[in-house]
């Protein structure tokens, strides 16, 4: 059985008929061709599929697209404005916050949520704030530096 949904993704309203069991991650990747949210573990552990749902970072593999009906979703593709990187994206560039890049979209969107709630986090708070995102390259050190760079830039 299909259901009509209407979701604002990165500023564009999308209206689709979807199966109830379609996950938000699959909807974004396969229906809208937005492949920035990655499917890593597919078991609510790794955070590679993180997106912002009404501004809060969530694991898009763990909710159905129908649950997001009427919501506003931001994926990594929607973070830069007019070709200008968001300060968090810039931080990952400047501080070499990625190696293979698989976890990066999720890391950036989790960091976005963190900095919204806590604009000047300590190193410890950054590490706790990113606890839902795993980096298999283990590049956490520079990821923390990237978030610190962004926090500084965003508060200046």
């Amino acid at each position, binding site marked *: *059985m299909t*259901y009509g949904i209407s979701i604002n993704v990165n500023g564009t309203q999308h209206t689709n008929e979807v*199966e*109830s*069991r379609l*996950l938000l991650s699959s909807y974004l990747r396969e229906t809208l061709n937005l492949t920035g949210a990655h499917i890593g573990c*597919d*078991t*609510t*552990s790794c*955070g590679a599929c*993180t997106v912002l*749902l009404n501004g*809060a*970072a*969530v*694991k898009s593999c*763990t*909710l*159905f697209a*129908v*649950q997001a*009906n009427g919501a506003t979703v931001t994926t990594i593709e929607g973070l830069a404005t007019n070709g200008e990187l968001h300060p968090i994206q810039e931080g990952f560039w400047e501080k070499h916050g990625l190696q293979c890049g698989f976890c990066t979209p999720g890391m950036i969107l*989790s960091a976005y*949520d*963190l900095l919204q*709630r806590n604009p000047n986090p300590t190193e410890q708070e950054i590490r*706790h*704030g990113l*606890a*839902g*995102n795993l980096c298999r390259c283990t590049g956490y050190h520079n990821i923390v530096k990237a978030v610190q760079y962004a926090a500084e830039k965003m508060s200046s």
Partner: protein
Amino acid sequence: MVTSSFDYHAPTSVAEAAELLTRFGDSAKLLAGGHSLVPMMKSRLAEPKVLIDLGRIESMAYIREADGGLAIGAMTKYVDLETSDLVKSKAPALAQAAGMIADPLVRNMGTIGGSLAHADPAADLPAVMLALGARLITSSTGGHRTIEADDFFVDLLTTGLRPDEILSEIAIPALLPRTGTAYAKFGNKASHFAIVGVAASVTLSPDGTCEAARVGVTGAGPKATRATETEALLNGHRLLHGDQIDEDVIEAAAARAGAGVDLQEDIHASAEYRAHLTTVFAKRVIREAVSRAK
């Protein structure tokens, strides 16, 4: 991973949700934050034919002061419990435990009611409910019912909820004067589920004697359990001499926190290790509760 097919309903009131639940009975599951149910559906451990999403019922998400304590809507998210000044002041152990659940992404979706109704043996909040003496209020087409936390956790993934009932509110009684509450756990490094978690509420008299103690243990057994032997060893005993905490009394009481628990054994921890962790964490939270009760 793809779940089985299901019909999806998104009621906007508790009454409407209760009617749907009565209509579809066993073939339906209630969807709260979905962070236990959706993974179970993806691995096909759960294959409900009907999903009733409570996420659109705005009246189920609230934190209010009530009778000096708290009334919390079942659809209140962990992140809101963790950051609420009202919860921090009226039920410190609850705010503390909510902030330790899984990770921030999960806490943005997971709900108090979802966690309690699922009754995962390694969930954090059941222990806190036992220590705080919470009352769980249900809604159904037949009206409301109140279940004491002590009667709610029946067995592994099994609660005192009837099949037609929706857990709608969690009532936390007012803390008596000079009461401290605390929660601590030894979490699994990957999932942060409690291998053992302990919550305590301790009320002291002006001279530092324990007037009331409630201790809840999760993770150790198939369900969250009151550590009644520990409570008995604290009640009536002096836990504070001036500013000095009586370590001996607390240690002796904490040593019995695993008594009566059907200690589980799995790849994460042996029964013996869980028994050890139970005493260690009971001691820590009782000390913390006593220091907060001053």
